[in-house]
């Protein structure tokens, strides 16, 4: 198992911080990628942040009303070691399958 920490992402348009409105997950929860994690409010709008990945929530940072700066830790996940990266899937080693048979008269000259 490995822990992966995600910081508050850049919410665009020069915003440098956000205020936590409500956490939608708690430590111990198993979350899926894109599942809503937390509602935060900036000076421009309120947004719901989707989970950047699947995993078990280990820690969350900040309670309702707390301000978090962009780039500061927001949430920590525990993920299995053999988790794929941001794209693609982990290939599974399977027993080799074949349709072709070899036939040869090996003249050992």
């Amino acid at each position, binding site marked *: 198992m490995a822990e992966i920490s995600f910081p508050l992402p850049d919410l665009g*348009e020069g915003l440098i911080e956000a205020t936590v*409105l*409500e956490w*939608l997950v708690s430590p111990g929860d198993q979350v899926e990628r*894109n599942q*809503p994690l937390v*509602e935060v*409010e900036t*000076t*421009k*709008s*309120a*947004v*719901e942040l*989707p989970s950047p990945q699947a995993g078990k929530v280990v820690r969350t940072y900040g309670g*309702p009303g707390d301000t978090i700066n962009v780039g500061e830790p927001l949430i920590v996940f525990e993920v299995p070691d053999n988790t794929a990266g941001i794209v693609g899937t982990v290939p599974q080693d399977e027993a080799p399958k074949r349709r072709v048979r070899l036939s040869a008269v090996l003249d050992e000259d």
Partner: protein
Amino acid sequence: MSGRHTGEQHSHTVEGTDPQLYVAVHEPGTDAGLRPVMLLHGFSSSAKLNWEDTGWLAALLEAGRRVITVDLPGHGRSGAPEDMDSYAPSRIRADLLQIAFDAGARPLRDGDPASGLDLIGYSLGSRLAWEFGATQHELVHRLVLGGPNTADPLAEFDLVAAQRYLADGTPIADESTAGLLKMAQLLPSNNIFSLLSLVEAIKGEPFDPAEAVPRMPMLLVAGDKDERAASMPELAALGAKAGAMVEQVLLPGRNHTNAVTSRAFKQEAISFLAV
């Protein structure tokens, strides 16, 4: 899988001119078999800011609802027409009706849960939804009105002061006007002059909720710290007097800006519309 068709869905125009509204129809992975839901965003917002970034679209799709989103004129990815008529609330409602039909909404039929249209509005979108419901009772099944108000704050907007401020920086005396303009200027995607056209058009057709009252069931939702929605109970009373079933929900600790992301709001709306 959530399929999604974006772009200019509407193939018909009202009054012969293209309103250049950006429409997106979002298909759920598993269709619950219910009527589509149309989402109407607030002033100086957009379908993306009001409904996508806040998690509404994902929550509705998850609930199996087909969703129609529209950017109001001058907002989001919609065009910014030059003519004032394109911004008149009455014209916008006519365009919305055409968009709903082009996206497949059909008049209500008894016993057919796929017939009709549900509407969710926020702020200015709630005003449009109220009027749309009142005039389209054969189509609209239920209304969810977020951050609603009996009077449109935009009607009190000091247009002259705003234009002077934009021209040479003269400070705006009216606090509400200054606040609304600041909000409008925060988003680079806003076409500020187009937004002022919308304000001017709204001043020409101010909101009068008593003029036509929707009679379908409605859910009114606001943050308990939302001063702009302080008159929500008056709207509820108007609806009830006209015979509508009205439910009200107050979201603790929320204001006009941050009520929109509330999970409780989404859950109340989704279950209210799931009939």
